[in-house]
Each structure stands twice: as structure tokens, then as C-alpha cells.
């Protein structure tokens, strides 16, 4: 029945609708990185405390869990906006397909329940539950961080590689919801890449906070220990992310060749295609870039003479905006490589010298790494989502068929942007206050 009686409507403000969606996602996704990784890091600290009895670990877990709760609450409300927007902005998409992938969100809902319940028990349960039970109460939170991303990314994977239904007269029939979501060859790389991104973003941001403090004389045993727990996670996840990113690129070479062509600015189908670093796509070639012969064919297909499909393999109306996608991709890969190197340096010093690096520059780099990781995260999603354009459901439904017919999108977009701006300032201010308060209580002791 899906989609019946639901004709597309012309929308003057399609671009604004897309930007509003993008803005909301760009706010939500960095926050959920903390939902993914922070519970695990908090548990590492608490676990260490249980095993060693060292109170410093307990103090770390306690303070971090308070921040975790704050960020979780903000993640919840920003996520709620996203689910409202699916209907408000993209009713055409929802009317036709929300049943096909709805199961993913339903399971996601239960995962959220679990996370919300146990995060409450965990954070309010310090000193009120026995240490063992308290630790156990944290485990579902960490699991829900994984399952929450799994289910929502299954939906995104489906949008990028739709399956599990037949299209008859523009309507989905003969739907197999389980295989549509989880029998999809496209979403595993997205899940793993996003999960590791969660640790990279959280780890570097948290470590960056202590690195910042270290330059201001806050460098006691507490800070060094906290930095080690967070930074070690990010430093290991960053090199791993390069390997996973390579897997992602090989998957899109197979499943979304046009996206790959846009990432690389490859206008014609080529055997032994070169790879270009930097530069600008002028509609035919990459100008001012550094070309490396045959590398694209090698990376994408492990064969120097493999044939790589170009943009010319589809009509112009079916191509994504090349420079946006390409710039986002290069930003992600550039930052990703730099973070991986920083991570390897840290791992080397820890393993060989068995201490923390002591160069000032290292800590400056760690301070910069957090925000850069967020940029890479958003850039990655721009690569994926804009690279999928003009389709909302890849090669099934165009974004303009999905959009609402209601007016007032620019007003909503403007209002949301203002609210998020105010919120960003307020959260920043509150986190600083929080850090200061906990330092004061420490001084008082």
C-alpha cells in the first residue's frame, strides 16, 4: 500500500530543506560519538579501579560519567528533531519507504530505551549500588552505543543500497524487512567506520581537554591518567580507520561507482585510472592536482589496469555535485592520515619509552586533533550523503520527489539554526564551568 495517493509536490526551497537536514545531522552526529565511545571509556576507568583499587581511576570514571549524562541528554533531543524532520521535510520518502526500513528504527527505539535506562542507573547510582553492580549497570550503556549505531546505519545503508523489495508502479511491494536492512552488503563498512569514528572523536576531544590543561599547569597524576585512557583509544582507532576507510572505498567502487567517480573527479570511464590529490574539478578534469598514475585502479580493485567507471556512465542529471563531494572526501582523508600519524607516534612512545610524550608540540597537536576529528566526521557524512545525490534512495527515488510541499522551510531552518547556535554557546560554557567546578572541589580536598 505504501506511497498510494501521495504525489510529489513542487518545492521551491528544496536546497534549504536539505541544508536543514544536514545541519541537524551535523549537530547530532558529533554528540552521538560520545554516546558510542564515552561509556566504554568510562567503563575502562572503572574496571581499572575495581582491579587495582586505585582511587584515581574511580574519580575519572565519576567525573566523566557526569559529562556523559549531559551530552547524552543533548544527543537525545537533537536526535528527536531528526526523527521529526524525517516526516516534516521528507514526507514523500516516508510515505513510500518508511515501512521498508521502519523496523530498523523500531529496534533502534528499544536500544535507546536501554541506553536511557541504564545511563540513569549508572550515573545516579554511584555510591548507591555496590561497586560490582554499578559496573555491570554500565555495560548495557556501552552495548547500546553499538546497537544504536547499528540500527540507524542499517537504515542509511539501505538508502545507499536499497534492496529487499520490488518496485511496482513506483510503490514498494513484496517487502522483506529483515533482509532489506541486515542482508545488505553495503552497511557493514559504514557501521565499523562510524563506530571507530566515535572513538576517534571522543578520544581526541577528551584528551585534547587535558592536553590544553597541561599547558596551563594542570598536569597531575589525575590528568595524565585520564589523558592516557582517552588518547590511547583514539590513537589506536585512527590508524585502524585508514584500513576501514580503504575497505569503504572498495565497497563503493563496487556498489556506487558514480559516487567513487565523484570522489576522484573521474569524468570518463578509464582503464588504469590515476588518483588525484588536491586540485579542483572543472567539469572534465582535475586541475592543479597531483596525479598518481594507476593508483585509483590499484586501490579500488587491486589491479593496476582495472577499469574504473567515470561520471560519463550516467546522464548528467544523475551525477552528484563533484567538487563538494571531492572536497569533503579529501578533507576527511587528509585529516584521517594526519590523525593516524599522530596516533602512531603516541603508540610508539608509549610502547618503546614506556612513558607519555613530552614535547610541547605533541600536546598542541592533540588539542587540535579533537576539532579536526569532528571536521573529518562531518566531511565523511557529506561524502556519503551528498555523494548519493540526486537520489534519496539510491537509483529509486530522487530527493525532489521526497520533499514536503509545505511552505515556511526557510523560517524553520533559520529558527533551528539560531537555536543550535545559542545551544552550542551554552553547552560550551557549561562544560567549562563543569571542569572548573570539579577542579575547585579537587583543590578544596
Amino acid at each position, binding site marked *: *500500500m505504501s506511497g498510494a495517493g501521495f504525489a510529489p509536490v513542487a518545492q521551491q526551497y528544496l536546497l534549504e530543506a536539505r541544508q536543514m537536514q544536514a545541519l541537524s545531522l551535523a549537530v547530532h552526529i558529533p554528540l552521538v560519538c560520545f554516546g558510542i565511545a564515552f561509556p566504554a571509556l568510562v567503563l575502562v576507568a572503572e574496571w581499572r579501579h575495581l582491579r587495582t583499587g586505585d582511587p584515581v581511576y574511580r574519580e575519572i570514571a565519576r567525573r566523566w560519567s557526569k559529562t556523559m*549524562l549531559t551530552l547524552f541528554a543533548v544527543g537525545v533531543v537533537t536526535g528527536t528533531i531528526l526523527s521529526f524532520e524525517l*516526516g516534516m521535510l521528507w514526507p514523500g520518502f516516508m510515505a513510500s519507504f518508511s515501512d521498508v526500513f521502519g523496523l530498523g528504527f*523500531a529496534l533502534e527505539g528499544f536500544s535507546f*530505551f536501554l541506553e536511557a535506562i541504564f545511563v*540513569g542507573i549508572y550515573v545516579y547510582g554511584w555510591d548507591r549500588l555496590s561497586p560490582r553492580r554499578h559496573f555491570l549497570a554500565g555495560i548495557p550503556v556501552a552495548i547500546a552505543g553499538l546497537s544504536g549505531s547499528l540500527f540507524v546505519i542499517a537504515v542509511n545503508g539501505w538508502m545507499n543500497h536499497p534492496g529487499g523489495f520490488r518496485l511496482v508502479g513506483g510503490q514498494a511491494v513484496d517487502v522483506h524487512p529483515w533482509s532489506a536492512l541486515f542482508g545488505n552488503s553495503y552497511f557493514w563498512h559504514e557501521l565499523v567506520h562510524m563506530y571507530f569514528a566515535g572513538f576517534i572523536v571522543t578520544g581526541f576531544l577528551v584528551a585534547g581537554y587535558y592536553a590544553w590543561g597541561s599547558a596551563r599547569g594542570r598536569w597531575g597524576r589525575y590528568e595524565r591518567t585520564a589523558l592516557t585512557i582517552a588518547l590511547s583509544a583514539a590513537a589506536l582507532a585512527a590508524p585502524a580507520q585508514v584500513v576501514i576507510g580503504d575497505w569503504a572505498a572498495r565497497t563503493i567502487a563496487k556498489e556506487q561507482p558514480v559516487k567513487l567517480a565523484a570522489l576522484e573527479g573521474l569524468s570518463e570511464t578509464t582503464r588504469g585510472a590515476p588518483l588525484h590529490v588536491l586540485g579542483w574539478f572543472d567539469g572534465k578534469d582535475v586541475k592543479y592536482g597531483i596525479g598518481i598514475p594507476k593508483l585509483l585502479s590499484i586501490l579500488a580493485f587491486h589491479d593496476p589496469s582495472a577499469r574504473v567507471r567515470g561520471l560519463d556512465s550516467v546522464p548528467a542529471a544523475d551525477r552528484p555535485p563533484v567538487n563538494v563531494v571531492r572536497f569533503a572526501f579529501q578533507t576527511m582523508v587528509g585529516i584521517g592520515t594526519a590523525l593516524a600519524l599522530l596516533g602512531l607516534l603516541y603508540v610508539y612512545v608509549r*610502547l618503546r619509552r614506556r612513558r607519555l610524550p613530552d614535547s610541547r608540540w605533541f600536546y598542541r597537536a592533540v588539542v587540535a586533533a579533537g576539532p579536526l576529528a569532528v571536521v573529518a566526521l562531518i566531511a565523511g557524512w557529506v561524502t556519503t550523503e551528498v555523494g548519493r545525490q540526486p537520489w534519496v534512495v539510491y537509483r529509486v527515488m530522487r530527493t525532489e520527489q521526497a520533499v514536503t510541499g509545505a511552505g*515556511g522551510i526557510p523560517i524553520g531552518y533559520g529558527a533551528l539554526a539560531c537555536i543550535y547556535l545559542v545551544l552550542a554557546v551554552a553547552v560550551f560554557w557549561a562544560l567549562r564551568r563543569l571542569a572548573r567546578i570539579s577542579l575547585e572541589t579537587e583543590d578544596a580536598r
Partner: protein
Amino acid sequence: MLADVPVAMIIVGLAAYVVLAGADFGAGFWTLAAGRGAQADEIREFCRHAMGPVWEANHVWLIFVFVVCWTAYPVAFASIASTLAIPLFIAAVGIILRGSAYALRGVVAAGRALDRVFALSSMLTPFALGTVVGGIASGRVPVGNAGGDEITSWLNPTSILLGALTVAMCAYLAAVYLAADAARLGEADLMRAFRTRALTSGLLGGAVALAGLLVVRTDAPPIWHGLTSGAGLVALAVSALGGVGTIALVGRRRFEPARASGALAVAAIIAGWAIAQRPFLLPGLTTAEAAADPAILVALLVGAAFGTLVLAPSLALLFGLVLRGTLDEGPAAPAPPARAPAHPAFLPRRAVVALAASCGLMTLGFLVLAEPAWAHALGVASLCACVVSSYALVTGEAPGEPDP
């Protein structure tokens, strides 16, 4: 038949949302209506603490309702969300502001402005959601992409009345719950204060509900007919009895049963609405026509059944801890004494190094070089093992111990 099951799930979800999250919203309302002075501050403080550990979990019910609605009745959901985009957006803004104000207040000492934002958004969201229900119930949402009037679909007599009723219900539920909490904690003054508030808001809410019936009679005749005959009438009667019963119980300070009967009153009226509107979801669109493919409905039910298996014990645990007061703020048990000897490591360092290195090599082979899906699965598993074992090595010794 199968096509109706999701409606039942939506009713359960909505009732849970109104009963649980509604009380949280109402607590926000009472912070605004607390007035001035020492007792007012105490009341505000109490409202906030009562929301503590359960707030996020209560909120998820709304997500649940949305998700079931769009999975089971895609066209109806898309029609509702596109026509009623404005009140939904207002509700969303209220949710953002309220959630953020709450999160921030957990962090910083109370600021006046933050309090205001919190209280006002606590009224904005229930009001807006009430108008959404009013728009649907009075048949103002036709099938189609933004097919209804963007303004009158939610600014109309039924909507406005339902908006006001929702706010009143939230305030009432909150007052009852807070009185119960105060009684449990032995706070006699607060208990009296919230008892008075519960009685006032209960009577007020009852009056709005009666007025609402009259409005519905002219503005949404099908709902009026549904509610005054057959099963709808039963639901209406149960709701009225529950409402009157709660007021009587609160009057006698029997707060725990009053919690239950208040919840029953709300759940019954939501069920009554669904019964009155049956078989239509939207004008001209029956549940059977709107429902997704049976395969999807079955999958949704199976998913929900699994979910409930996990959810029910977790919720029971949470509310058990909350109602027993285990998670209450206040002086806590002293921190456990530091336990002395460190446990020996699970594995000798060399073994962990070997594990990390071999998993790293396996990752190269399975994830980077090999192509088949099973190889990638092995590759991801070995990558994770490599990272975890390396993590043990890298964080291994107490950091910075041999201090420069």
C-alpha cells in the same frame, strides 16, 4: 486484524508517554507556578530532583510512537507530519530547549533564565502535541503531501482545547507524583503543597475536559458520536471515574493508588479516542488501507516482542530503584575503601604483543587484500582484537609513573 495491532502499540506508547513524560513536563510547569519565597525555592528544587534518573527513558516513548506510526502506516504518518509541520516543529523546539535547559542545570547552579526556559518549554511541547492530536481527531489532516491547511489544521477549537487539556493533565499528574514522592521522603510541607496543587489542577483539568466534550460535539462530530456510544462510552466512563477517583484518593492522601488511577484516567481517554475514530486513521483512510505490507507488520511485532523482552525487566529495575529511593540524591554511602593488591595481568606481556601483531597481520590479509564477505567479517574481528590488545599494552603501566 493484523492491521489494527500497531494502533494498539501506538495507544500504549502514547499513554505511557503522557503518563510518564507528561509528569516530567508538569514538574516543569510547577517550577514556573511556584511563586516566590523560601517555600517556592524548595518546591522548584524538589520538582527538578524528582525528574532525575528517569527523564531520558520517559522521553523515548515519543520516539517509539513515531516509529511505530511510520513503519505501520507510512502514508498516514507522512500526511500528518507534512500538514502539521508547524505544531510539530514547535513541539520539537520545546523539546530541544527543555532538554538542554535540564542538561545544563544538572551542570551549573540554577540560573533564573534557565529556569524560565525550562518551565515555558515544558508547557509549549505538551500544548503543541495536544493540538496535533486535535487536528487529527477533528479530521483536518487529509491524505497527501501537506494536503491540509497549514494553520487551521492545528489552530482550531478542538486543537486548542486539547492543547490546554494536555497541559492541565501534565500539571495534574506531576502534582500527584510529586506529592507521593514527598510523602515517601517524609517531607510533610512539600506533600501538603503538592496535594493542594493536585486538587486544584485536577478540578481544573476536569472542567477543561467537560468543556472539551462540548467543543468536540460541534467541531468533531464523529469523535463525539464514538465517545458517547458503545465501547467509546465505556472508555469515557472509565476515564471519568479514574479522574474523580484520583481526586478523592489525593484528598485522602492515598498517593500511591492515586498515581495508578490517574494513569488509568489518561490511558482510558486515549483509548477512547482511538475507538471513536475507528476504523479511520485520516478522513477516508482506514487502518486496513493505511497499513503496510503484512510482512512488515509481522516483522515489527517480532521486533517489538524481542525489544519488550529486554525492555520490561530493565524498566522494572529502573522504576524499582527509583521508587525505593535508591537513586535519590542526598548523603550517600561512603566511598568504598581502596582495595589494596593489584590483580595480576590476565596474560603475560609477550603473549599480548604476539596477539596484537598476529591480529594486525590477519587484518591486512582478510580486510585489505581478500574480497569475499566472510573474509571481511574475519578481518573486522581481527582488527577489533588487534586494537583491544594493543590498547591493553598502550595503557598498560600506570601512566607517567616514572615521572620526569
